[in-house]
């Protein structure tokens, strides 16, 4: 498991994390508010995000490939094609095989797929250009409760350590349960296999509880008093404010265009 963040010194990387967080939220909100079938608006939203990806020097391929991640969920919207709003059109696909679909429903399906794909790209851009600690600081400055930020911060700090631990446990299981080539037998029955996995999970939680004790002791020895050090709360600079306002106005204009061009 790797982090998405890519070290770089582009304009987007150096932007204040708060600006990026608010812009990302506004982008997804305005894109979601844009009606179905507003193709010109979708294209311009995509242009905006692709340009940002270019400015960030991440490369278009990286963002576009990674964005396919959300695709499997599109299954949830497939029924719209066939039972969308009337009128329904019947097609002769093959001799004797007929297919009834709703053009309006097809449009909605395609709109949902494209909107979702563009939204994922914005989220990727945020995660790939912002260090997670910076993101957490930004969230705290934007009034997300301190306790929650502290928990997520500690979680992130130990995530990759514990992922390594899980990988080691899984490797140990694999090395002890050899399979005969060509046979589909992996150890005992399904419930036996589930029990082994459950034992691994239980052992993982036990190790993690013990680890959290050690972490707490280490924090105490470094002067932890129940409060994590406060982050600075300097206000956004004027330049950042203007940049953010410009971005949001641009998004609002694209949304308006979408209202008029959409169906």
């Amino acid at each position, binding site marked *: 498991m790797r982090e998405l963040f890519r070290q770089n010194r582009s304009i987007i990387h150096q932007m204040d994390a708060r600006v990026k967080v608010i812009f990302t939220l506004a982008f997804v909100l305005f894109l979601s508010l844009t009606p179905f079938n507003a193709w010109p608006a979708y*294209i311009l939203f995509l242009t905006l995000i692709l340009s940002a990806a270019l400015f960030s020097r991440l490369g278009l391929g990286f963002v576009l490939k990674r964005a396919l991640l*959300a695709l499997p969920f599109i299954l949830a919207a497939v029924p719209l094609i066939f039972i969308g709003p009337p009128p329904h059109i019947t097609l002769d696909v093959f001799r004797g095989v007929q297919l009834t679909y709703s053009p309006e429903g097809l449009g909605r399906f395609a709109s*949902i797929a494209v909107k979702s794909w563009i939204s994922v790209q914005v989220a*990727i851009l945020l995660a790939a250009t912002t260090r997670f600690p910076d993101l957490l600081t930004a969230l705290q400055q934007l009034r997300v409760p301190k306790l929650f930020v502290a*928990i997520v911060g500690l979680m992130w700090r130990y*995530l990759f350590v514990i*992922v390594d631990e899980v990988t080691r446990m899984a490797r140990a299981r694999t090395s002890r349960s050899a399979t005969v080539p060509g046979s589909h037998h992996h150890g005992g029955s399904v419930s036996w296999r*589930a029990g082994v996995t459950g034992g691994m999970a239980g052992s993982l939680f036990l190790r993690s*509880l013990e680890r959290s004790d050690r972490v707490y002791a280490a924090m105490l020895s470094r002067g932890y008093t129940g409060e994590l050090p406060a982050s600075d709360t300097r206000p956004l600079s004027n330049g950042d404010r203007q940049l953010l306002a410009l971005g949001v106005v641009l998004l609002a204009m694209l949304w308006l265009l979408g209202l008029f061009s959409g169906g």
Partner: protein
Amino acid sequence: MSSPIFSPLPMHIPDGFLSVLVSIVFWVISVIVIGIALRKTSRELGERDVPLMGVLAAAIFAGQMLNFSVTGGTSGHLLGAAIAVILLGPWPAVLVMTSVVSVQALLFQDGGILVLGANLFNMAIVGVFVAYAVYTLLIQLFKEQSWGVFVAGFAAAWSSIFIASLSCALQLALSGTSPANLAIPAMGAIHALIGIGEGLITAGALAFLFAARKDLLKLGEPRPAGNKGVFLGGSLIALMLVVLSPLASSHPDGLEWVAQENGFILSAKAALYNLIPDYALHGISDPALATIAAGVLGVVIVFGVAYGIARAEKRTAKQENSQR
């Protein structure tokens, strides 16, 4: 090992699949409940619980990589809401699952940003509350039997997954994305199966902890009074969703009406059309023409930016060379 980036659970809704109104309503509900959880937790728990919850959240995230093969390429996974409830109690479990789901969305794009409120509602609130209600109920029932813990753990894990998937299906139906009479049976059936894997692993984990550290399971401990609300809430959510889902899937008209209404309110298109006179919009009123124009504009902008950046890079490279 499956790829850890893809969550094993087809329950993380991406952006674009829920209407804005549904997203906002569930954000409000989730923020309120998580706020209560934060207040209760910071009052009741000591300072050592911050590292405890952080490390356990990491363990649940990483524990989702654990799997076992079932048959024909499918596999059972751990998701963890039930085990978090059993180890920590309901309110800290809400915070732990909130952390897991939020990091999945922010760091790994597993689940959207605008719909994060709805995802938190399903997995961190419904999942945890239902698991708590089922677990405490069955523990009371099977107090004498030693196997009671495992049955309760299995049932809590299974029902947390199943009920959460019903809630997810209802949100999709309310948004007009999937018709209720398809989404609810499909989501329910898939997760009734996934829930068995979750239940078996949870029971296995409890068996391990029972043998290794019995004290962690807090057996026989009286139910704290402060959690009565969670018990009631969890039972109520479970009952409502179980009753409501078959109703909604056999009478989808009501949901469809809601979906249409809220789509209409938020696009507010008609009102805007009245505000701006017809002739102003000739250019973009032809959809095909407008799409082509937008496409051309988009390509020009993206190529322009790419060209500009490439030139700027060449220039800085040249400068660095000449400085040497």
